């Protein structure tokens, strides 16, 4: 089209037209970009709740299955009837897509039923504030079993899990701490498993407590103090043997005649259990000496260089 010389208004109009076309294009571009970005964010799941503790263990399914099969194969061949796939499914159903602050013991019922197994009498070993020592002990001496040496505890030890109502239903980023909410998947699991473990105990029950802890060897707020002692069955359990261990070279805050032990004794006596208490039960003290062979507490009677 030939340019009409001298028409300023026409030039103005065309500038305006071009300008608004550019503006419109820019707007459209901006809208498209914005929708793309927000769409991406939605796919990542901004709706998943954020918590203070570590998230679900990566490859949880593989880890749980591997541990289940390992346990059934290696440690207790007589448990051959455990269906590890079913066990995994029941664990998953207990928490997937659920609000991790709303977990109940009913959620874990199917899992507990599938995975619990009887414990031989006189072998149950309860513990409080002695995790490292007690598990080193049961690893070296297969005469005793802690909860973490049963199938349930073995699968769950050092593993974490929690769900979330939004996809994919499992939160791998974070999980609630107990301080954030009590009814979280981990706390509910361990409380329930501990209760069942105590209920299954028969004969003599052993307990390893820490006499070097400032707050006292026995605490009512611990799982041992609040759940396990109240779920021991007086018809099955005959005696409770307390092993009160002090750290090698550590403070001897409490011994068998201490306050909290007296309190523990009276609770147990009220339920008709016979109780004994030993300071520094020798086999466990020997285990402590493995890491402190030259400490004065670990001097052997026989001549050593």
């Amino acid at each position, binding site marked *: 089209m030939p340019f009409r010389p001298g028409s300023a208004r026409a030039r103005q109009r065309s500038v305006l037209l071009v300008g608004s076309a550019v503006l419109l294009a820019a707007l459209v571009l901006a809208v498209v970009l914005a929708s793309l970005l927000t769409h991406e964010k939605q796919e990542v799941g901004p709706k998943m709740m954020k918590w203070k503790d570590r998230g679900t263990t990566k*490859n949880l399914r593989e*880890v749980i299955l591997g541990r289940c099969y390992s346990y059934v*194969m290696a440690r207790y061949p007589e448990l051959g009837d455990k269906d590890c796939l079913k066990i995994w499914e029941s664990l998953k159903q207990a928490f997937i897509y659920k609000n991790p602050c709303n977990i109940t013991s009913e959620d874990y019922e199917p899992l507990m039923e599938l995975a619990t197994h009887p414990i031989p009498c006189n072998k149950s070993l309860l513990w409080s504030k002695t995790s490292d020592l007690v598990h080193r002990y049961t690893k070296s001496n297969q005469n005793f079993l802690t909860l973490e040496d049963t199938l349930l505890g073995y699968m769950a030890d*050092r593993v974490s899990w929690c769900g979330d109502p939004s996809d994919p239903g499992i939160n791998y980023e974070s999980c609630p701490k107990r301080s954030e909410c009590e009814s979280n998947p981990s706390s509910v699991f361990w409380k329930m498993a501990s209760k069942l473990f105590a209920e299954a105990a028969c004969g003599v029950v052993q307990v390893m407590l820490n006499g070097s802890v400032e707050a006292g060897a026995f605490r009512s707020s611990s799982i041992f103090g609040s759940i396990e002692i109240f779920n021991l069955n007086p018809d099955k359990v005959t005696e409770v043997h307390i092993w009160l261990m002090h750290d090698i070279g550590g403070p001897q805050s409490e011994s068998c005649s201490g306050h909290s*032990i007296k309190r523990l004794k009276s609770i147990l006596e009220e339920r008709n*259990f016979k109780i004994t208490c030993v*300071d520094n039960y020798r086999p466990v003290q*020997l285990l402590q*000496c493995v890491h402190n062979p030259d400490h004065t507490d670990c001097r052997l009677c026989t001549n050593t260089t």
Partner: protein
Amino acid sequence: MMKSLFLSVLLVSVLFMNSFSEVQGKKWKGEGTTQNLESIVIGRCYDYIGIVNPAVGEKNCSAIWEAFKNAFINKDPCNILPNDYELFINLSFHTIPPNKSLFWENNQLLVNSFAGRGRRYMSLADTLFGFVADYLNWCGQANSAGLDYESCPTTEECENNAVESFWRKASATYAQHSSGVIHVLLNGSVVGGAYPEPGFFADYEIPNLQKDKVSEIVIWVVDDIEGPDIESCGTHTVKILENRLKTLGYDVTCTDNYKSVMFLLCLDYPDDSKCTLSSAVFSVDGSLLSDGPFTDTGTIWSVVVSQL
């Protein structure tokens, strides 16, 4: 008459042969492949990298399983060589911290406990490549992609079987990458000798130690608490070992009944005289008794007995 007798003999012998072959039906004398082997190996792999020792970083556990399986699947189970596991080792390999290597003979459970899940020492079973296979059994079959769950060849039946070759390769790798102070735990109560030859340590580990990476070799000879003191440092096979290592140019020290390990053995024999501690004890009322040596009759227990 003769015919019926012959037929009944035939019948009986056929039946006998059937039941005989049922008993003899297993190809090999060893146990079959561990059930759910794949799930266990893969699960242990993720367990190790995620929980047991995250310091090793990311590993591809499915690829590790595939490489492991392909070393022995679809082959003559008596013709598996250590280098068939080369890819498996490459994928699962990680460095071993210096001064943490712990070699051993004839005391597997003790070593497991003593190593402390890799925290004090890192034995072969505490590496990823050892961890995934520990206590497991496996073998394949020629012309079949399946695992043999019925039976597997023992080393007596054929040396180049899947499991034996695996541990030969794993042991060699472990030795090759060990550095700093090397520890060896031997059993001084074993009849065959504390340092067995042939043996894994002798044949697959010593030859693969790297002279320029190893600063010292520390030998511990420990007797079973109630076992005989058959060998000690400087005697019999231990002497052979010490000489061999010295000839190879290593700095060697040897200790009998290393205390730390003794304590561990004492767990099962707390009242043995070798295990008596001379530590202080509490009296019945909880007060500390003064330090003093103990008699061999053992520690005085502080016992608080409840009402009957």
